[in-house]
């Protein structure tokens, strides 16, 4: 895993010192809120409804156990005993006091963590595949290039004041678990016919008020030239991006208004210039140095099967269900990837208590080669668990309300904080997620319904990814009352698509029934083996509309 070098340590320490001074000057009245706000945002500090909120970066969603333990400690000492894992693979604390945040950041820095690049108009924390380095058929660990991008983008002078925030995601696998096509830049690691590794680059995706799926700008950028190519994209954006209207300042609008072909032409022209200068060609030694951080951990040589594991499944039906729903095959014989659902029935999606975080840190230390991952679907992952240890791990998870066997099912929903916490919200998201998960609590029913992704946002900013939910729910405000709009057919994977709105919005009383109507319409219409999204893509919106609004 990537470890800070001296430069990183100093940079983070300086940043905390600087912020401590800024907080002191704000509290003493020397800085006005107008002066202070951009400074606090650059350090991940937002104001929500009830308190400040601190967003802590978890680069490419990878944590060591000591880091997870620190997140637990912070929840306990500076917050109210919990944290919220987000769709950007970060964690948010909902109650820190402003004057304690510098101390909190100092403690975070002691385990090489920070809140930089979690807000403001910069290149945000790069996100990636939670199964990186563990899944079969990966072309290259996506965290290598994610880290190279992080180093290039952090405090890059040209990127400190972009027209808007800028998000990059990377996948090293054909199955996209990082929603890369919904990012300003999405990168897919590819191998060409000559066997060389390079990158397919998608540009101009995003959600918010005007959602777009990114356009493929270049099918294969050679490895050493990726930064030059990205720099070219950033320059075109910086030169042409609209700064007059913050909603239109995203690169997705530029790509849309300029047109895909013209955008490609502009980027290629800029790329040729930068490439000729060789300035941003990444030397092989540097690639090797960073790759070494992500070298496979010390896997043991094990048989592909485990008797104990097989027997445990026969003996314990709940364990067998957990394996079926939450455990994924590992590239290394004798290991498995274990998903920890943060979506217990009736729970708050993405929330974990300090005690739960400690338990997960311990499990990672003893059974997962010290690693934990955060997923953009607001779950956690123990990426390297031996089959022989699975039952033990499961028992500990189950004893801590962390073994809900619902990964990818209807109760595994994304929900943003919504009006329970968020200053920008129109409506609550979490209670809706809770009611839906209670309505469909029966796991057998969930297995029967199969893969179904519900994603809920409390306003059009779309932090809850509603545009790309198989079923998306958007909270809207009508004269101070909450309403909910449904969209269908969205997808965040390699077949990314923006959902279509069904029609008029539903009241808080009617929305869960409406969701059930959508689900039963699907189960009535599906043919053998069809998932919700397949059925929707086959039959279209009409049958759902008819049942919803007849």
């Amino acid at each position, binding site marked *: 895993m990537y470890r800070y070098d001296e430069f990183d340590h100093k940079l983070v320490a300086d940043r905390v010192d600087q912020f401590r001074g800024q907080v002191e000057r704000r509290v003493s009245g020397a800085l006005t809120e107008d002066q202070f706000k951009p400074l606090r945002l650059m350090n991940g500090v937002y104001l929500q409804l*009830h308190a400040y909120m601190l967003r802590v970066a978890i680069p490419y969603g990878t944590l060591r156990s000591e880091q997870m333990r620190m997140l637990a400690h912070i929840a306990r000492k500076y917050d109210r005993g919990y944290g919220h894992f987000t769709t950007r693979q970060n964690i948010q604390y909902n109650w820190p006091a*402003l004057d304690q945040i510098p101390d909190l950041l100092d403690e975070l820095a002691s385990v090489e963590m920070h809140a930089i690049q979690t807000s403001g108009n910069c290149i945000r924390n790069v996100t990636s595949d939670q199964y990186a380095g563990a899944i079969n058929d990966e072309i290259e660990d996506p965290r290598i290039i994610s880290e190279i991008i992080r180093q290039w983008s952090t405090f890059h002078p040209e990127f400190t004041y972009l027209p808007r925030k800028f998000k990059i995601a990377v996948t090293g696998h054909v199955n996209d678990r990082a929603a890369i096509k919904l990012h300003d830049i999405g990168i897919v690691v590819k191998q060409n016919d000559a066997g060389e590794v390079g990158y397919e680059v998608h540009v101009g995706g995003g959600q918010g008020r005007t959602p777009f799926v990114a356009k493929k700008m270049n099918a294969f950028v050679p490895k050493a030239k990726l930064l030059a190519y990205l720099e070219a994209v950033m320059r075109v954006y910086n030169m042409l991006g609209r700064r007059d209207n913050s909603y239109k300042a995203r690169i997705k609008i530029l790509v849309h208004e300029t047109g895909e072909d013209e955008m490609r032409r502009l980027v290629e022209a800029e790329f040729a210039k930068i490439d000729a200068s060789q300035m941003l060609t990444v030397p092989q030694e540097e690639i090797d140095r960073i790759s070494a951080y992500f070298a496979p951990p010390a896997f043991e040589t094990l048989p592909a099967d485990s008797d104990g594991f097989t027997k445990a499944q026969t003996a314990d039906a709940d364990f067998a269900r957990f394996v079926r729903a939450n455990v994924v095959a590992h590239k290394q014989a004798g290991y498995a990837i274990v998903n920890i659902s943060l979506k217990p029935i009736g729970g708050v999606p993405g929330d974990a208590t300090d005690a739960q975080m400690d338990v997960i840190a311990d499990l990672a230390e003893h059974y997962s080669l010290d690693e934990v991952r955060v997923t953009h679907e607001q779950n956690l992952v123990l990426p390297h668990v031996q089959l022989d240890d699975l039952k033990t791990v499961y028992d500990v998870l189950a004893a801590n309300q962390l073994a809900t066997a619902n990964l990818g099912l209807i109760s595994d929903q994304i929900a943003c904080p919504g009006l329970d916490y968020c200053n920008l919200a129109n409506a609550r998201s979490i209670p809706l997620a*809770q009611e839906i998960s209670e309505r469909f609590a029966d796991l057998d029913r969930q297995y029967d319904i199969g893969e179904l992704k519900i994603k809920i946002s409390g306003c059009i900013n779309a932090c809850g990814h509603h545009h790309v939910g198989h079923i998306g729910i958007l909270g809207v405000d009508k004269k*101070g009352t*909450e309403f909910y709009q449904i969209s269908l057919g969205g997808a965040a994977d390699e077949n990314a698509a923006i959902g279509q709105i069904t029609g008029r919005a539903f009241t808080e009383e009617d929305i869960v029934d409406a969701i059930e109507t959508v689900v039963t319409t699907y189960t009535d219409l599906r043919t053998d083996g069809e998932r919700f999204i397949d059925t929707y893509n086959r039959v279209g919106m009409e049958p759902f509309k008819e049942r919803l609004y007849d």
Partner: protein
Amino acid sequence: MAQHAAKGARFQAVTANRLSDGEVVYWAADNRWVEGFSEAEIADGADAAEALLARAMPADFEAYVLEPYLFEVLEDASFYKPASVRETIRAAGPTVRLDLGKQAGA
């Protein structure tokens, strides 16, 4: 920001977040910020509301709070309550964590 004062609201109060910890506060009749909505001064009519907001924002208000604003209040039998869901949640705490926020102490 959603759900702020509706034009034409009769009753309004002033709220903000406290600088040091972000706590929701209200402007009270004795010219200080208080934590409980029940102690908030209620203005009747647009002119009274403007005057209330002006009193809540003396030259040095930024040393205590962030972004004071007016919001609509409804008269309900013998007491007042915030008109919007947003202000109801600010006055109480998250509806999904009744153990947190102001409601927890109540």
